[in-house]
């Protein structure tokens, strides 16, 4: 394991992007960052700019209005980049399937690495998703995704 991989594994920074969620998943993502659940013990920090982020956490069904912005944010992230879809509606548009303005899943727009199911998933489930993603990171050689 190289120095870069080691550093990335111990402090993956996340960017949170809401693509039209009902806020349920968003408050659970934030709850996972705050003292009761505290993902900062894995070195995970919420950052403001896509250029600093390793992991993109997406919540909510992808609306047509936000699609272009989502792609732009994804493209601005440096390689290797990972995407975590939090919530049923992000994975498969969930409760909003058949709504005319949403895509049937995040993977129709950008590639996804980890799906966390639940409506909304509990913070424990989100932490589980993050840990799964870290295992995936561990298997990478030389930082290629």
């Amino acid at each position, binding site marked *: 394991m190289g120095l870069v991989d080691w550093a990335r594994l111990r402090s993956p920074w996340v960017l*949170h*992007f*809401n*693509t*039209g*969620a*009902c*806020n*349920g*998943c*968003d*408050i*659970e993502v*934030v*709850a996972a960052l*705050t*003292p*009761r659940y505290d993902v900062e013990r894995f070195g995970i920090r919420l*950052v*403001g*700019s*896509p250029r600093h982020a390793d992991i993109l956490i997406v919540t*909510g*069904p992808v*609306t047509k*209005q*936000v699609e272009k*912005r989502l792609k732009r*944010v994804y493209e601005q992230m440096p390689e290797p980049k990972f995407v975590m879809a939090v919530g049923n*509606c992000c994975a498969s548009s969930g*409760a*909003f399937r*058949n*709504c*005319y*303005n*949403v895509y049937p899943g995040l993977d129709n727009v950008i590639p996804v690495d980890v799906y966390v199911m639940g*409506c*909304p998933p*509990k913070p424990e489930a989100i932490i589980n998703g993050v840990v799964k993603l870290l295992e995936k990171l561990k298997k990478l050689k030389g930082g290629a995704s």
Partner: protein
Amino acid sequence: MSNIVDVPVGPQHPALKEPLNITCYVDGEQVVGAKLRIGYNHRGIEKAGEYQTFIQNLYIAERICGICGIVHAFDLAQATEHIIGKEIPRRADYLRTIGLELNRIHSHLLWLGVAAHEIGFDTLFMYVWRDREVVMDVIEDFTGNRVTYALVTIGGVRRDLPQEKAEKMLRVMDALEETVKKYKEMCLNEKTIRMRCDGVGVLRKEDAIALCAVGPTIRASGVPFDIRADDPHAAYDEIPFKVVTYDTCDVTARILVRIDETLESINIVREAIKKMPSGPIRARLPRAVPVGEGVGRTEAPRGEVIHYVRSNGTDRPFRWKVRAPTLANLLSIPVMLTSKGDYVVYIADVPITFASIDPCLSCTDRAVKFVDVSSGKSWVWTFSQIKRMYWKDKPCWRERP
């Protein structure tokens, strides 16, 4: 010579948890104007609701907004019961009131944390969110879920509150009251909060009334407007409570209104548990709703929510309309963000000013206006145009039964 620069904030921005675009017109450090662009969160819920039954709609109504979900489910149920025209059991009213007030406590604490984060006071953010988890535990104990409760149903509620859970709830409320009082003390005396919030984001009383602001935003401008007191529903007619107002009209006033309301809500929960009658929790109402129109309104944590439902005699609504509080409050944002005379807005105050109305865009984005970004042309699509566009690949556009 002044040189005005456009500064776009959003739709992805560290200070915003939801997609929204604010364009601030900036002269040096001063904001001289602001323009809002919403609609990133529009999903088409009202339309989807017309193809589902009333009971199924409660599920999607709860997902209009994840923070105040129970309010939307309650309003839709209230509007449906209004059409059917039957009373629901009194115990169900009290259980709904407890659900609504627990929701308000959790939402106001959540907001207090977010507001502290916006002014860079992350210590308070972490403390408040730690204590909010206690409320989430009570909610989970009562309804079975942390965020979307699925408590309200048409004709009553789906879960009862047994005695031992009620006692546990009362114990938690006592501990929580102490904590919230501590936070009030902190917000009144902490110099960093006062320096960032005093005189920031001023919305004068006459502006608030003219722009039809609702909820804590208008109460912080000194107008005692609260649907729970003005048009009592659920069990609010039997529970005494105070409508909190402050008249400094700034962000500090909005913080204090919300903290005081949290204390009031704790009292309402106590009273409701004390006065709650025994009896059934649900009345069986017909699945097919008679022809008619119904309105449900209640005070969400952010202000007044109105649901309008029209039925054509089937088990599906003919039309369902939602008016969320943030839509009313958003209009006051450009006023708060415009420097005028002695009142000066700096760029650094934009996030906290915007956060002070407790924006909830997933509630708000009910309508879309299509804009071609390259040419700046905007238009409104007619129903038949949308139908033609999506007829093939979307099952929701099938003819109604």
